[in-house]
């Protein structure tokens, strides 16, 4: 029997199934895609990343014969780094702001209460948000890394050959997405802990762009190792790993980066679970 009431046209409205993680992620995807700021920051990320790649490759290739021997060697040994690294800092800046605001904007607008009412198991709510964002950032970053690789390898082909069939290059290209995803998750975690946009963005910027410089001032090798173990220092994952100056191999850097995500992500989950909203 159809029972229309004031609040519905027909029979009682029921969930079509017991809602699970995929439903939460679908919901988070709707939230993510329905904000203009998402698309603005990603458009900026593409433009600047690809632009820096083209600029750096063009400059180095053009001036190649004037470079000293050491730089020429570095160019040849880490061409993939030259291609993918120029945009890393800016792209991680864009992803960080996006990641922090993903959650701080919910706190500043009160949306967080709607989110938590819809999924009162708060760690699940945060995990769904993080997983959706991570997938999105990974795919998007690869959409930057792959074309950048082909454009960069075409520009640099006069003096160096980088092949897509080289496992080192494939690892670097796939790591670009992982690095950006980690940047996004670190920012999201900090945002979930401090809950304020300005505070979260400032902290993330300090972590990425101020602290490494400060740490490197510590005398001896300790400072340099600490500095290289900061999240931005681990961008060596987006290189051949054959540079003379590297303190950590790409594999070690990858593990250090994963540890950052696990520690900050864990802190964010505890914070969200324990504190009132």
């Amino acid at each position, binding site marked *: 029997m159809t029972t229309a009431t004031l609040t519905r046209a027909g029979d009682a409205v029921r969930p079509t199934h017991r809602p699970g993680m995929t439903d939460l992620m679908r919901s988070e995807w709707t939230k993510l895609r329905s904000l203009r700021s998402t698309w603005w920051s990603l458009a900026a990320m593409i433009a600047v990343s690809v632009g820096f790649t083209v600029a750096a490759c063009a400059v180095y290739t053009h001036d190649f014969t004037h470079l000293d021997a050491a730089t020429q060697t570095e160019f040849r040994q880490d061409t993939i780094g030259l291609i993918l690294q120029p945009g890393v800092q800016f792209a991680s800046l864009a992803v960080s702001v996006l990641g922090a605001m993903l959650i701080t904007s919910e706190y500043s607008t009160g949306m967080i*209460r709607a989110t938590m009412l819809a999924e009162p198991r708060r760690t699940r709510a945060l995990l769904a948000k993080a997983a959706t964002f991570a997938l999105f950032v990974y795919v998007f970053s690869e959409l930057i890394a792959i074309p950048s690789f082909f454009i960069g390898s075409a520009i640099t082909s006069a003096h160096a050959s980088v092949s897509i069939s080289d496992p080192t290059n494939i690892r670097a290209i796939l790591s670009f997405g992982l690095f950006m995803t980690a940047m996004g998750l670190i920012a999201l975690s900090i945002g979930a802990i401090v809950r304020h946009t300005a505070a979260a963005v400032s902290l993330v910027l300090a972590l990425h762009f101020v602290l490494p410089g400060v740490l490197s001032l510590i005398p001896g090798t300790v400072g340099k190792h600490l500095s290289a173990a900061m999240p931005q220092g681990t961008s060596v994952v987006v290189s051949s790993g054959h540079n003379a100056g590297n303190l950590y191999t790409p594999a070690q850097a990858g593990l250090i980066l994963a540890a950052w995500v696990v520690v900050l992500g864990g802190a964010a989950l505890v914070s969200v679970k324990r504190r009132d909203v």
Partner: protein
Amino acid sequence: MPKNTENLRRGHAPAIEARGLTKSYGSKTVVDGLDFQVHAGRVTGFLGPNGAGKSTTMRLLLGLERPDSGQALIEGRPYAELTAPLSHVGALLEAKAFHKGRSARNHLLALAQSQALPERRVDEVLDLVGLHDVAGKRAGGYSLGMAQRLGIAAALLGDPRIVLLDEPVNGLDPEGVFWIRNLMKRLAAEGRAVLVSSHLMNEMAVTADHLMVIGRGRLLADCGTAEFIERHTDPAVYAATPDVARPALLEEAFMRLTASAVEYSAR
């Protein structure tokens, strides 16, 4: 079998129940050992002076805050244990609890998806609250009245059996007030439990069937609206007031009851 247990539980447990509910912030006890039940089929007005603990109580019922002691139960269970909670409880806590850059439709769509509710339900509630024509616009540009309507749409999205509204008529124009008043009455008439907080006495006098009054976090009264007025008005005034005008005495009754429990008062 589980279905029977569910029905049994629903049949016996009150829509909302607080048992010894207590919450402090630092040394200040905001909700102090509240015991009450809210039942289906009527509008229960939740009254108290500013700072009496109304909003905190509602937030405790919804699991947004954890009690220091006691329990807040929805149909016999803590909110956090509900599956697809928006199908059990709909809540309007504050105007504009949405992202300003998102459209009303996308806001509701995201909520519907999280509950595995069919997408057509979004259009249904948009029609219901009269936001259909502006559903695609950024919600940040909405007037307070439109924002309240969006909040109501979100509350009714899951066709819940229990509806909690915190100060729903704040900032509304007379037409909006009239609309919400009738909405609450009809929701109750459909058999839902409606708990509505307000500090507007005249509004509650014409809307609520039942009243719960708190002051300084404690329950001061829990009875029918007419009974409340009779019990707490000056007897001489009550006797001299014709039946039809008695709802207007609610304000005086409320003042007499809460005189000692107001947090901030002009002297």
